[in-house]
């Protein structure tokens, strides 16, 4: 065989067991089989998209909202694998706070990571649907590194962040109430992104890459959650305490496998399938709430993996 193509994939945030399928794919030789040698590095979502656009890295794994915003601002980026079929943003509050939904937020203090973040948007839509507005609550901005702690410390009553944090918080013995944002605002979690030029110049590479991603996730879905988590915890997410494996297994089996990575659409068209309607709705809402000036056309920045190279 030819020497494998070396690519760099930049992943949102930091090394975490949530990306276990990718790590397992590398360790099990799935990427290699597709003629790809991949290196993972990490950064914030916005940086990933800029790096993709600039050609600094080959693939990115940011969250979907960041891609929409990037596309709306004219960055030449393409989603080539809608890996997470839904968003994982959620309203989280301590169960004993009495908050059960957006309607209970009146007069409360809520933290989001940035006024430009999707979770701020989710908060606005959630409040609106509950008949409230931003004027009814007080919003604090707290960076990723401290937002969970601010909820734990009781400095805020609720946070809008990732549903995955529910498992962290509950591991500490705090009961958590959660409202998934996706229920009222379709969006997408991590998706594979590449540069538009790269896609048109080297569709074969992109095809092989998305195939490898699909195969990696399939392997995990096919009953290898345990093995995948072991690989991730041993080699890739070194700071994670081993005793969190139980929570992670629950998260994978109850959330990721059944509802995040798979959807009715993927049953039909395979993992990573592009839900163009969903993407379009996501973009339209972002535009409606003025996060972006104008909604881009989903077809312009989302590609269904099955159509790559055809």
């Amino acid at each position, binding site marked *: 065989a030819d020497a494998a193509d070396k690519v*760099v994939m*930049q992943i949102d*945030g*930091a*090394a*975490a067991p949530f990306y276990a399928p990718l790590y397992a794919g590398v360790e099990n030789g799935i990427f290699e089989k597709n003629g790809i040698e991949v*290196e*993972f*590095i*990490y*950064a914030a979502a916005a*940086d990933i998209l*800029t*790096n993709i656009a*600039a*050609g*600094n*890295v080959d693939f990115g794994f940011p969250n979907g909202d960041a891609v929409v915003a990037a596309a709306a601002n004219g960055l030449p980026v393409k989603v080539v694998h809608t890996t997470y079929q839904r968003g994982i943003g959620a309203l989280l509050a301590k169960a004993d706070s009495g908050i059960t939904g957006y309607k209970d937020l009146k007069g409360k203090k809520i933290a989001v990571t940035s006024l430009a973040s999707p979770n701020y948007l989710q908060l606005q839509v959630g409040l609106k649907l509950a008949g409230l507005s931003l004027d009814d609550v007080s919003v604090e901005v707290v960076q*990723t*590194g401290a937002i*969970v*702690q601010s909820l*734990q*410390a009781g400095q805020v009553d609720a946070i809008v962040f990732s549903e995955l*944090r529910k498992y*962290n918080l509950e591991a*500490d013995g705090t009961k958590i109430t959660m409202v998934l944002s996706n229920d009222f605002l379709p969006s997408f979690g991590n998706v594979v992104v590449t540069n538009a030029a790269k896609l048109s110049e080297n569709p074969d590479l992109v095809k092989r890459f998305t195939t490898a991603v699909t195969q990696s996730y399939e392997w995990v879905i096919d009953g290898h959650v345990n093995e995948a988590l072991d690989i991730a915890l*041993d080699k890739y*997410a*070194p*700071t*994670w*305490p*081993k005793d*969190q494996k139980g929570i992670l297994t629950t998260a994978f089996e109850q959330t990721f496998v059944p509802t995040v990575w798979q959807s009715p659409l993927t049953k039909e068209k395979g993992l990573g399938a592009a839900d163009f309607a969903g993407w379009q709705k996501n973009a339209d809402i972002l535009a409606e709430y003025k996060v972006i000036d104008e909604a881009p056309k989903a077809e312009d920045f989302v590609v269904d993996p099955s159509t790559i190279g055809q």
Partner: protein
Amino acid sequence: MLLRGIAGLIATLVLWTAIVFIFQVPSFLLPGPMEVLNRLVFLFENAKLLRHIGVTLTEIVAGFVLGTVIGILAGVVFARLPRVERFATPLILLLQTAPKIAIAPLLLLWLGIGPTPKIVLIAIVTFFPVMSGMVTGLRYGEGSFRDLAAVLKLSPWQSFWHIELPSALPAVLAGMAVATTLAMTAAVIGELMGANEGIGYLLSSGQENSDTSVVIGMVLLLSLIGWAFYEIIELIRRRSLGRFQLS
């Protein structure tokens, strides 16, 4: 030095334990020393902690040395040619004040991924205090030494080596001491820009998991590295002062 070190370490640990104990601080806000130590041992066993330390240390040493050398040379040039200094000042301030996180993609674009942008970033922050120290040491140094150099018609190199560097040494060393603290921060920023190894990488991984013990542990490691740098500089200072009485 040993005494100072131990005294300082004990004082820090005692203070830290006391704060955690007295205020009953929950560990997600500030874990106690033992908890952090446990996490470090865990990382040592599970995460090849030493390799990560090695990666970061290499970046820091390379960046620090590079920044110091350039800082000293630029200091000499600036002190001799104030116009050049004024001309370079806006660019230098641009490099110093522009938030590194904001220009990270540009740095990657120009320098590629890998250690280079991290080393360059560390060199950039190291450069400024060292250069400032050198300029001040030279500009406000003993005027009569300048006369001596002029009468002896010393070459620029000779007057740098025999007169300017020794007389500016206290100020340069002070600049280097400041630079150590900045270098630690730059190392973290560099690794937040895109990395898959190093202390900053472990740190962001800990932040991702809201794992305050890991965050504090990594901060502590960087502090200790910074402290080691600082003590080396102190050692040089005391050696040179004891020998030369540079006051």
